[in-house]
């Protein structure tokens, strides 16, 4: 096992612009299909030694798929991959590792009950177990010092914070001797401060000769930290540019194709309270739970809840929809008074609708028809036939009507399986269902996650329409842009409580400070 610094020095000899040096990574005409869906359509890409190269695009543009091909997770249908000028066949992650390619996936590939060290050790079964452990312990310490990271490698990974877990992932890649490092949406779950620290480390790595692909959908990140930017859209490369050559507007246009102008539009008339939470407490072994959580939502307003994920947002959704119980405190609902710890079927009947963050597992039954997925709320409320007989004909008619009104595309018939819909259309189906009972309170948890800009705009329009109709809307999102765009009032959630509230127009800096201030 060579010391990591050995590699670093070796590659550092080539300058990032050395024209005679072959690219660290070159992809030519890569194509990949999943079933009928063509995810990559003849993509070319190259990465120079010592370069930080941002791969920019919307969710679903094919960025992660492309990099998974390089990491050996997916096998391409056609096209060639070259590493340091030599064409290679990558048939699995271990091939990629041998070639010096390492990827930090968006969803970390860590064995949770294992310690950080064991997670690294499992890729390196050389020598006796005890010796390998000892050797690795020393090596990782050096590597940590080298890039200025700090993490306890002897604690089970499941007890570490996400940013610490990410450091272990990066360490894993470095110990494996990777010269080409791919980071897939590395800042998705980090606070701003943590992100800045991460980019400092990445810059250090590049300076020492590593080549880095930064997969991201965040414009600012790419413009600030990358040496070069390649924009992907719909499984194809749109253009490669230098950050100095483009402005934000131009880059946006490249990402989206055509620009959509989504303007802010505030509510004029917030009315009476529809939901009040008072001093709600809930203990939770896995997360921060809820601590002294109090806020209220009025009719005719969108109340945005900003905050880094994992600060109690999911628990908040669960207690308001009746999926889990509070330990103390009250939930009050207009027209129903105290509804603390009522079961979910009761909360639903009180006019609460919910667009959950994990569509596939919480809002859609992929194996069942579109019609069933649309009608289940109505069936539960007794709208379609009796207990003895479900009125299929009325369900079909209503589904067709809703599909038309909510512009759910790709529905060939109401008996088609809902799982065949694309993310955006599945979300529209969920909204169509949730809005079908004209709810008085709507919880939307990351409603545009994974959607393209057009679909997000449609989702936003629906939320605004519900507000204008007089419903109270809670918008929970990790995307501060989305919160700023839609909300009439903003609460910041941190460690299980609302730590600050802002009237709009709000100061973005102040919100950001509140988000991390209590960390």
């Amino acid at each position, binding site marked *: *096992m*060579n010391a*990591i610094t050995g*590699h670093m020095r070796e590659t550092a000899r080539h300058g990032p612009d050395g024209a005679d040096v072959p690219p660290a990574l070159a992809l030519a005409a890569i194509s990949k299909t*999943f*079933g*009928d*869906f063509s995810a990559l359509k003849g993509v070319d890409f190259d990465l120079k030694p010592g370069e930080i190269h941002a791969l920019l695009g919307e969710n679903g543009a094919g960025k992660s798929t492309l990099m998974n091909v390089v990491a050996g997770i997916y*096998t391409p249908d056609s096209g060639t991959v070259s*590493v*340091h000028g*030599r*064409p*290679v*066949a*990558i*048939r*699995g992650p271990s*091939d990629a590792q*041998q*070639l*010096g390619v390492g990827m930090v996936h968006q969803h970390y590939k860590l064995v949770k009950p294992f310690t950080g060290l064991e997670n690294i050790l499992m890729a*390196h079964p*050389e020598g006796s177990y005890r010796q390998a452990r000892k050797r690795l312990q020393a090596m990782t310490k050096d590597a940590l010092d080298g890039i200025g990271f700090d993490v306890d490698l002897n604690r089970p990974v499941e007890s570490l914070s996400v940013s610490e877990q990410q450091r272990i992932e990066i360490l894993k890649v470095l110990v*494996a*001797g990777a*010269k080409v490092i791919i980071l897939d949406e590395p800042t998705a779950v980090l606070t701003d401060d943590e992100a800045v620290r991460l980019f400092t480390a990445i810059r250090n790595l590049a300076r020492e000769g590593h080549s880095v692909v930064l997969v991201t959908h965040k414009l600012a990140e790419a413009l600030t930290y990358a040496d070069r930017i390649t924009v992907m859209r719909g499984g194809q490369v749109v253009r490669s540019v230098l950050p100095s050559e483009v402005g934000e507007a131009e880059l946006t246009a490249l990402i989206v194709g055509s620009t959509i102008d989504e303007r802010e539009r505030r509510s004029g008339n917030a009315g009476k309270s529809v939901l009040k939470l008072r001093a709600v407490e809930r203990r939770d072994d896995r997360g921060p739970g809820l601590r002294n959580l109090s806020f209220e939502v009025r009719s005719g307003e969108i109340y945005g809840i900003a905050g880094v994920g994992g600060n109690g947002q999911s628990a908040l959704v669960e207690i308001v*929809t*009746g*999926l889990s119980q509070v330990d103390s405190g009250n939930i009050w609902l207009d027209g129903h008074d105290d509804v603390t710890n009522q*079961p*979910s*079927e*009761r*909360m*639903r*009947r009180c006019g609460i609708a*919910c667009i*959950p963050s994990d569509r596939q*597992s*919480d*809002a*859609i*039954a*992929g*194996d*069942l028809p579109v019609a*069933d997925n649309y009608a*289940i*709320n109505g*069936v*539960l409320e007794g709208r379609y*036939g009796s*207990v*003895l*007989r*479900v009125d299929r004909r009325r369900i079909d008619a209503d589904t067709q009507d809703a599909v038309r009104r909510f512009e759910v595309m790709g529905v060939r018939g109401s008996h088609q*399986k809902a*799982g*065949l819909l694309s993310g955006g259309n599945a979300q529209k189906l969920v909204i169509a269902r949730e809005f079908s009972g004209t709810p008085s309170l709507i919880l939307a948890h990351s409603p545009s996650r994974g959607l393209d800009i057009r679909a997000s705009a449609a989702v936003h329009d629906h939320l605004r329409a519900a507000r204008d109709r007089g419903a109270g809307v809670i918008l929970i999102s990790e995307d501060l842009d989305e919160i700023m765009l839609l909300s009439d009032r903003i609460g910041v959630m941190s460690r299980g409580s609302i730590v600050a509230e802002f009237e709009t127009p709000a100061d973005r800096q102040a919100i950001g400070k509140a988000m991390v201030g209590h960390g």
Partner: protein
Amino acid sequence: MADASISAPTRRSLFGRFNLEVRGHMPMGQQMLVVSAGILLGLLLSALLLMAYGVKPSGLLNEFVVAIFGSQRNIASVLAYAAPLTIVGLSAALAFKARFWNIGIEGQVIFGAIGATLVANYDIGPPSLRLVLMALAAIGAGMLWIALPLFLKIRLHVNEIISTLLMNYIAFNLLLHLLYGPWKDPQSAFPNSKLFEDVERLMAIGWQNLNLSLPIAVVLVLLAGWLLGVSRYGFLLNFVYANARMARALGVKIVGLTLLFALASGALSGFGGFIISTGIESRLTQSFFVGYGFSGILIAFLARNNPFAVAFFALLISVLMVAGQSLQVFYQVPFAMVQLIQAIIVICVAASEFFIHYRLRLLE
């Protein structure tokens, strides 16, 4: 390890040569084709196995086709066995549809039959109502036998596969206790209960030796079809089956539905015990239940929990059982072969489902 010599990996593993892809969706017609191919393969392997046992191809044709479909008597015996098989198949299907792995059908059949025999042995109720009381006792006993695993599953998350299975062994030992002890027929050398009286047997329907069990099974198939396909319970249960998390989030009463369908499953199994003991054996024996438990499970699997498909596969297994009996007589093929063949068919069908979910692509 960190030897980053840049070369194309040449290692090719067995798995590496193929690429496994997840299929999005396969049309229903194609799926049925794949499953049919699986069944055919299973039958083919079984035929080879029987031939290895010395049964000639002509013998196979004779036992499975000519002998069965050539005589009304044999068709009647196929139908007679198909009735209880359908009932236990429905029992399994209802439970599986509620994501409750009821592997305890055998125990519920035994306990149901014990319940029915209890009513018969002690002449409970007027003779005109005797059969109805026996049926009700069987249904109650079947539900009782599933109630404990059901309770443990819902309240304590105890794995129902193992708990229902353990209940089988407990029921079996209880049966032996009764047959070797208090309920033993003194006129018989074997551990049997005494023969049921005429009022305690299912009425004949006037064709061959068939009795009411057949029309009852048909009615139950229709009822199950209605429950799963038409009623609100079935509509909601589809969501519990497809995505329980979502169903819970939308306010579906999952516990209630699970209770309803699992208890219905226990009731059906118990009723199956009544049908077998009164319709076929006319008494309790120490082996009257053998094979029904696992056949019910396999039938429900083959039928993908669809009641009408359950009836179809029950007929298929029934043909196998009747043919198996004559193979035993004429070729000395052990009756265990019937169980083996069922398992082979299910293995082949299960294996064939791979091609419904995945696609293999050869690399280069």
